[in-house]
């Protein structure tokens, strides 16, 4: 799909624009899991895209189009249930069910285009919801995928976490729905010029069993459909009590959808769906008529649908203020992006908490129902999320900052590590004729005091001196100390200069900051050394495992070069015989072993007349970090024609002897067969299959052939 073709997914029926990064079509549940587990910014599931509130609008996010998952998984007429995947449209479902004598009675007012996943997410209203209720009452089981990537199957107890949440908590995959057998229905119409008569009739009819529909039309709207200019109610019955049957009933039942489309064609595009109590609908209708705003209504549920044009911004604001003051609730469309004014603060908190349980990382449907600013704040307070709040450090937003702060914290708060103690150097000894006494380290105190760098360090504490185990540093010769300072200028600048040159600091110049800095530097250096060691180890492992072939070649080349050098220097380019060459190489190999066994500081064993300096350089460059004897591998290649028995210094590992494995021991004792025939059979089978045991396939075939020939 091109980028230009992807612009088809930018919008919704609500006409609010977004930007789609990528579009994805899952066909199986595991595909949905994959896409949730990827690291990305935002996921937006989408069914048919006919929601009027902006629930399927992406905002730099990945769109998950569920319309390819549209199968019927199960149908049982005895239990009257259907299991359906989330991408199936209502029209197809009803067509298939009508062929078997059943129906699903919740039909929203959009010609049955919507998918079942969308209807579950928004808890859709239907035409007959006076009697049959909303979508929540018709679900028995639900399967959806978490914000963490887990497949969850819920019953009727946890339905509210998904149904009505508009895709915040997860992506719906499949559901089981209840189904009823088809019924014969009828209707009747009632016309008046008076609003109060309508309400009195509706109040009476609402309580009866048969009534399932109460639709209300205004005179302005009735004109568009083709009815006379009066107030109309269409009453639907579940029996044959009404006066309209058969084909006329189908006509009458399509009036509501026709009203929607006819108002659309007159440029009344914006729709709102506030929900009121029965007695307060009157006030709202009177208010709307004063403003000359067309509207439709479901009297049984209390939903009124006012329509606006795009240019009427002021009218819409007034109506919304009125709704907010009357404390109306969201009706059938849902909340999404456009209807956030209908929520209280308490309800917003409830939505946030439900979301944190299922989607703590804010991966799905950012900005819907809950504002995006609150989302970012919560993201920082949840452990495991991208950011973190610490009281000392303040609010952080990136992983980088968290890591840097962690590193800084490690240096300052390490109670276990004993800070290296402070040097208490004696004042410099005056130079005398006598030889200086060797200064020994004073005895350390009995208890080692671990000092934290954050605590104030008192100069009165006397702590012992321990020399650092670094061989590169030379030992202090106190005979080389400078002369004592005379009573001349004791300005700090001269003192500092003098001591900086000679790198000795007396007590007076010790401050807390310098000590801290030295401590920090040491810790930093240690960490660096550890890092280097780790890197070297990794390099060694890779070099061992991956480049084994090149390594052998390198050893060969190296040995040949060594032999050439030796011969060229020592014997003035005379041609050596094979044995002489081998002897030369043997000597080198022997000395290498000797050198590796001894310590680094000792000098290697030398032979007169041989330049070992170049060899050492070559060896250190290639094999500097290893301590394994190189002799084992070099032997196999370099040494030609030499018996292994002559070289007695090194012990080769013996080749592993293949033992006859008894596979019957792997079987548990109760099921173990005691007879030997069966054990032999088992051993034959295992060895035949996997080539294990003492005999492999080829050998067995060879033996069989021999046996055949012999016979």
């Amino acid at each position, binding site marked *: *799909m*091109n980028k*230009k*073709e*992807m*612009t*088809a*997914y*930018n*919008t*919704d*029926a609500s*006409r609010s624009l977004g930007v789609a990064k990528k579009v994805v*079509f899952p066909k199986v549940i595991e595909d949905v899991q994959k896409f949730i587990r990827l690291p990305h910014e935002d996921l937006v599931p989408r069914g*048919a*895209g*006919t929601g009027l509130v902006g629930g399927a609008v992406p905002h730099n996010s990945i769109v998950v*189009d569920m*319309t*390819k998952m*549209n199968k019927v998984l199960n149908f049982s007429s005895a239990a009257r249930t259907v299991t359906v995947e989330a*991408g199936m*449209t209502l*029209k197809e479902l009803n067509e298939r069910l009508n062929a078997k004598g059943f129906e699903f009675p919740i039909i929203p007012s*959009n*010609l*049955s*285009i919507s998918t079942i996943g969308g209807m579950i997410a928004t808890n859709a209203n239907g035409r007959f919801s006076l009697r049959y209720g909303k979508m929540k009452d018709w679900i028995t089981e639900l399967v959806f995928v978490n914000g963490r990537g887990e497949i969850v199957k819920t019953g009727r107890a946890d339905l509210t976490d998904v149904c009505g949440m508009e895709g915040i908590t997860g992506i719906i995959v499949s559901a089981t729905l209840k189904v009823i057998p088809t019924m014969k229905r009828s209707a009747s119409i009632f016309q008046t010029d008076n609003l109060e008569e309508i309400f009195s009739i509706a109040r009476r009819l609402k309580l009866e069993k048969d009534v399932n529909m109460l639709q209300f039309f205004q005179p302005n709207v009735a004109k568009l459909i083709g009815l006379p200019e009066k107030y109309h109610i269409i009453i639907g019955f579940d029996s044959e009590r009404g006066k309209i049957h058969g084909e006329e009933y189908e006509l009458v039942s399509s009036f509501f959808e026709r009203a*929607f*489309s*006819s108002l*659309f*064609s007159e440029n009344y*595009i914006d729709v709102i769906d506030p929900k009121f109590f029965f007695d307060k609908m009157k006030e709202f209708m009177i208010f709307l008529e004063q403003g000359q705003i067309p509207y439709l209504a479901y009297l049984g549920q209390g939903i009124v649908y006012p329509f606006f044009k795009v240019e009427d911004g002021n009218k819409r604001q007034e109506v919304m203020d009125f709704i907010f003051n009357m404390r109306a609730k969201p009706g059938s469309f849902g909340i999404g992006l456009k209807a956030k004014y209908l929520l209280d603060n308490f309800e917003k908190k409830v939505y946030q908490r439900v979301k944190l349980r299922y989607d703590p990382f804010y991966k799905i449907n950012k900005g819907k129902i809950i504002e995006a600013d609150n989302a970012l704040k919560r993201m920082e307070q949840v452990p495991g999320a991208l950011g973190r709040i610490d009281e000392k450090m303040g609010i952080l937003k990136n992983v980088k900052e968290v890591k840097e702060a962690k590193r800084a914290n490690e240096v300052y708060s390490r109670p276990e590590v004993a800070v290296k103690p402070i040097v208490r150097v004696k004042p410099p000894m005056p130079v005398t004729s006598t030889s200086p006494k060797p200064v020994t380290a004073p005895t350390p105190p009995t208890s080692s005091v671990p000092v934290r760098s954050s605590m104030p360090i008192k100069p009165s504490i006397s702590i012992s001196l321990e020399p650092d185990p670094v061989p590169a540093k030379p030992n202090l010769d106190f005979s080389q100390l400078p002369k004592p300072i005379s009573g001349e200028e004791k300005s700090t600048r001269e003192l500092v200069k003098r001591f900086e040159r000679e790198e000795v600091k007396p007590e007076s110049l010790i401050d807390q900051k310098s000590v801290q800095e030295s401590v920090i530097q040491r810790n930093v250096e240690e960490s660096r050394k550890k890092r280097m060691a780790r890197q070297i180890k990794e390099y060694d492992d890779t070099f061992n495992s991956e480049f084994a072939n090149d390594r052998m070649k390198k050893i060969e080349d190296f040995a040949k070069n060594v032999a050439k050098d030796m011969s060229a220097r020592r014997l003035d380019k005379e041609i050596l015989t094979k044995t002489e060459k081998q002897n030369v190489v043997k000597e080198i190999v022997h000395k290498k072993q000797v050198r590796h066994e001894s310590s680094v500081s000792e000098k290697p064993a030398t032979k007169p007349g041989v330049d070992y300096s170049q060899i050492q350089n070559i060896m250190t460059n290639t094999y500097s970090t290893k301590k394994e004897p190189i002799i084992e591998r070099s032997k196999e290649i370099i040494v030609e024609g030499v018996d292994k028995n002559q070289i007695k210094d090194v012990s080769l590992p013996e080749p592993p002897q293949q033992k006859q494995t008894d596979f019957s021991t792997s079987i548990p004792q109760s099921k173990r067969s005691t007879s030997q025939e069966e054990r032999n059979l088992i051993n034959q089978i295992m060895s035949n299959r996997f080539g294990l045991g003492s005999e492999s396939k080829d050998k067995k075939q060879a033996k069989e052939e021999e046996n055949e020939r012999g016979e």
Partner: protein
Amino acid sequence: MSVESENAKEEINEIVERCIRCGLCKNLCPVLKVMHEEQYGPRGKAIILDNKHIERIVFDCTLCKACEHKCPYKLKLCKAFVNARKIIVAQKKDPLQNRELIRNLSKTGNIYAISEE
């Protein structure tokens, strides 16, 4: 750009800018029943043409006029798609299968190149 293609563009814009994205046209489109993707349906194509991208996906339409029947504005989407096809053919970016069909028609009077024998 020739005069014909400019006229075609204006006609497309007149038709497509009135779409309100309601989605009532989706139920009856035969291409959508098979493909299940938004850009093959009438609403998706109208959005693409509204953003002034004339793409080759306009050729994936059967021109059955089922979407016009349900549209609240009764928009003539088939006209818009045919005009878009004109522009693409003028730019010589039409798919190769169409050119084969036309060649077969001129040779044998038949799309499948079956001679009268």
